[in-house]
């Protein structure tokens, strides 16, 4: 049971910026679904990927991560999945 508050907080704030809704991060948890809860569209995912790369640098290749997922996984993607991915890039060996 690891915790990832730090990355989660960062990701939530970046999502808030993509959506251009000041304060939206407060409602974002690991369980938040990009599709159902945030009504994310593909373009938002791309922009979020760019922001992640700006923040975390070369270790993050969000597009590559997405390319490993099945379409159903992408549709069901939750913020926690992304957080886990970012953590694996930042902390990984």
């Amino acid at each position: 049971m690891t915790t990832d508050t730090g990355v989660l907080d960062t990701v939530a704030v970046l999502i808030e910026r993509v959506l251009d809704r000041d304060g939206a991060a407060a409602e974002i948890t690991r369980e938040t679904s990009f599709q159902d809860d945030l009504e994310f569209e593909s373009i938002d995912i791309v922009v979020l990927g760019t922001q992640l790369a700006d923040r975390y640098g070369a270790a993050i290749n969000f597009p590559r991560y997405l390319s490993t997922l099945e379409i159903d996984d992408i549709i069901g993607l939750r913020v926690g999945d992304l957080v886990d991915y970012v953590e694996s890039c930042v902390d990984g060996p």
Partner: protein
Amino acid sequence: MVTEPVAVVGMAVLFPGARDLDAYWRNLAEGVDCVTGIPADYDLPFPGGRGGFLAELATVDTIGMGVMPAALPHTEPDQLIALHVAQAALADAGGPPADPERVGVILGRGGYITAGLARIDLRVRVAHQLLVSLRELFPEVDDAALDRVRERFAAELGPPSRGAEIGLVPNLAASRVANRLGFGGPAYTVDAACASSLIAVQQAVGELVDGRCDVVLAGGVHHGHDVTLWSVFDRLGALSRGGRIRPFDRDADGLVIGEGTGVVVLKRLADAHRAGDRVYAVIRGTGVASDSGGTTLMHPDSRGQVLAVRRAWAAAGLDPAAPDSLGLLEAHGTATPAGDAAELATLREVFGPGAPAVIGSVKSMIGHTMPAAGIAGLIKAALAVHHGVLPPTLHCATPHPDLAATRFRPLARARPWTGPRRAAVNAFGFGGISAHVVLEQDTSPSAAPVPPVLVREPVRVLRLAADTPDDLADLLDSGSSQGNGRCRIAVVEPTERKLATARRALAAGQPWRGGDVWFSPRPLLPEHRIAFVYPGLEADFAPQVSDVAARFGVPAPDLTADTLARHGTALVAVSRLLDTALRAQGVRPDVLAGHSVGEWTAMVTSGMYDATQLDAVLAAFDLDGFRVPDLVFATVGASADWLAPRLRGEVTLTHDNSPNQCVVCGPAEHVRALLTELLDERVLGQELPFRSGFHTPRLRPYLDQIRADSDELTLRPPAVPVWSATTVAPYPDDVDEVRALFYRHLLEPVRFRPLVERLYDNGVRVFVQVGPGQVAGLIGDVLRDRDHLAVAASSPRRGGLAQLARVLAAVWAEGGAVDTDLITALPAGRSVRLDLGGKIVSLGAEAPRLLGVGAARVVAEPVRDLLRHTENATLAVLAAARATTPTRTTHEMSLRALPYLRDHRFFEVPPDWPDQYDGFPVVPATELLRQLVVAAERTAHGQVVVRVREARFQRWMAVEPAVRVEVEVTPIDGGLEVVAHGYARAVVEVAPGYSAPPAAWPVPAPERTPLLTGRQMYERRWMFHGPGYQGVSVIEGISDRHVRGVLTVPAAPGALLDSAGQLVGYWTLEQYDRDCRTVPVRFADLRFSGPAPVPGDEVTCLAVVESVTGTSVTARLQLVRADGTVWAQADEWELRRFSSDERVIGLEREGGTALLGEPHGDWVVVRERWSDLASRELIARNYLTRQEWEDYTAVPPRAKRDWLLGRIALKDAVRARLLAERPQVFPAEITTGETEDGPWVLGRHGFTLPDLDVAVASADGVAVALTRLRTATGVGIALGATPAAAAVAAVERAERAAAGNPLVSVDGPDRLLVKGNTGSWTVRTEVLPHLDVVVAWTEERS
């Protein structure tokens, strides 16, 4: 005797999460958990407490009920809610009853302390008590001062009344209904604790059956979230510790308190049939009984319950033990272990075995609504019968073992009710009063036909208008539902969460567009133009439009999309349908455009074709024979300009969509190769699921298939301008040019991004995507950061009408004129939010002065100047004469003396945890500094402290247990040396007055937006500080070198400078992933140029980081008052960095769930994650209890490290096991120890652990611990250099004896067999990566 059946013909509720009956049913069927934390305005002093709250749903039209605003504070809110719900129930029953003289009202209501009573209690009793106590505490205070306090206290409670409080008598909950609605039947409340409302139903049935009434309103009312009720239940141990009510779950640990009101309208069934009423359900029988001398008054007992259930079934003339006697039992289900067990015993006895039936309790969703619990259950059961759906019960994952002996099972998800629809409802009250009701579907031949399910009711949209965002916020808070002005906000299907979002948006004053909240501080319409943009083909196609077609009376389009041509045809049809619907609702475009095939849709909807002719051609077109090139498309997550030079082979660009998206087309293998290359450049590409060569020259040979049809169509000028994405200009007027452009468009790239830019330049600000897909998202990407609205009229997430309503709400919020029949406003006008909580009176900012103590300090400015001059002269003389001897004082540092330190605890502990030690409350360095300054000032007679030099803090000043600190002030050259022995020292300089403030530093540039706001920093526990120390209200900007923000001076002394330090702490947290927790340890030079700001003042703070090392962060800071003058400036403010990594940070932020140990099955391993003693000590403080800390201090220095790791491992092994079933387990809840028999673990302060065997081993900076449910053999775990050595050691530990020279043999991979003294052990082994050490643990003994 069998009772005459009674019909439920109307129902209404106001329960947590349910504004009305529809919402209640939706929540029931979908299993919505409406239990929440305590809303702030309920003023309930139960930190972390959870319950069912109405909060903002408690909004009623008080004026419509004849209650004037002035009378509201003296009215019991539950009466108004009862009236509101009764009116709604009558409306649901079809309107006012025929003969009001023969209508009764019987409501269950308990004698609890309700909001109205609590207020009069404050006004009368508490005010008096306050004065008595003040007089005792401060005998010197005169009566005038006490009068001031009394007046202030009373003023907080609002103006007094002349006897209006008589309206607080409890029976008015029923009488007010009868009075207001003119009913002449009996109207009264009944109190039978939690059985009240079912007893009200029984009484109502009696009134009807005996012919005294023709209609009776029956139900229950409970709005009593008062500290008294909570405390009583808390002391009983009946409240769930985790704040989750889990009826009939094996691990149910108590209830949470709810509130609410429900009312049903009852009639004799025969009357209901005659009147043609809708009958939700028929009440067949009711039964009530008491425990005849049960064990105790408060202990649930099955005897009375059994009697009540049997009586109800006898009244119904039915046998409860019949195999299919019922399909649903709505249980009392309090989720207290004793209550659930007794209820299950009753069910087993009365119903016995039989066809499986569903058991449930609505308490799992709304909490226990006490006297209203019965009606909450009865309405749930009636709705289930009516809808033919069996609803779920929450939090019952591991059913109570006693359920197995009954015919009942809980449901996790709703399912259709297939068998006979008969249900029964339990409500059992304290004191042994039980009630039961049997109800069923109306199956009689004369039953009115159930009306067909209505097309969903209009979407509810809160629409507010005002001149400014602030005024809008006021309107929102006042519960208003209209208003006038330029600024608009629309909230679709408002919920508490959406309204919170709306408030946030209004507070920020920036547009908010989406998530069902639409707010525009500067509306875009009517000054700007609206564009309809029709989408092209995209990967997904699943529009929901059948309800739109039905609503507008047109056939639903064929949505088959199995071939390219069918996909395109269906897409165009959906777009045309939505176009019709939008225009019918008043949304009319000024400009049309399209994406790809959508451009053709635009030509169609603009009227360029003759509709009849067009439909004929389309109908005749051979959709299955249409051929296209075999080329694939792919979207690419980058701009067209970026991609163009990277294109290879036969891949061409077909769409320039937005700055972050374009589309390419080409042979499959070329496109795929490109996508693979792009991944290396971090660019995502996605192949689309259809093939064609549109927008490439390769389509040209295929155009002949459509040319004949297309050229045959008559062309006319468009009614609304259509813009082309080929020319990025309006379509030409000339017919031949239009035809030519039509073909060009099919062969050339779509220039969507330039088109959107051009439309924007031409005044378009509102873009409506008319059709399915993600074109609105592309528009948003093009116009990012430019004020505009892009909204889609179709969404895969919701029905067509529901999404259409969002477009209407969004356009309305931009100032557009739209029809509102699809988006009904909320009930208009006069609604008022009722205050259902308790009230803690604050005497306000003036409080300290009320007693007159502070009054003396308020002296006019000129007088003060004169005094200062005189004083200075005197002081100069005194100072010269004074000897340089130290002054000593002793200070008690404790939570008693400094209660605000409760808000300065490092570690999270369970809510209401009794042992303050575990949170590690410490005096912050800044508070210690303040005390040193005060001590110095005392010896300096009227002079002020202007500078502090070389302030150093040596160790934690922990205040639990209390410590006494000696503070010594010694005059030295150039100041006063102040020492708190063992803790801190500083040199303080005093002067007769402050010198002129230095200039404020400029704001460094550039800076970025901080990740978090001040509020978020605390909420997310980046900072551990409680309210008294939460001074950072805004974090304005941050860079690699600085951070700045606004501090609002908090209440706790010393908290202002602490908050400044928090800003630097925040900087470290945002800047570094590791070693980022910091504590101030040194202020080299701190200068003050004025007296300290007082609580509530705003101060801006700029911190510039000067240097960072592995163990420190040093910054300079300036604190500037609101008038722009510098109050304080610090140079070399040094913070110590403590070791932390992601696990340590996790522990800080989520102390109840995060582990330092890494679980491996049933054991955990803990490595040392810190590099220095101070960091280790902080971890030890976090994990160890008072006793463990004492043990730790007695361990020899060299052994301390492994000892501590062992204890952490032990605790985390236990926590990891328990966390599988509990939301939180804190280290403080467990204590550990070691005897000759090995380690042991115990729960603390009422927290009980399962019986566990535990084992632990540690060496060289790593520890492992194992837990297992207790067996006779014991367990062992050990570390060793080799598997065999570790395995032998593990067995020795399990056997608690040296093994001599045991036989070790291999039993499989990582599995050894060790022959010990007591038997042969299977031992598992694992090499710990990176550590070169083997862990071995016993598995079983044979």
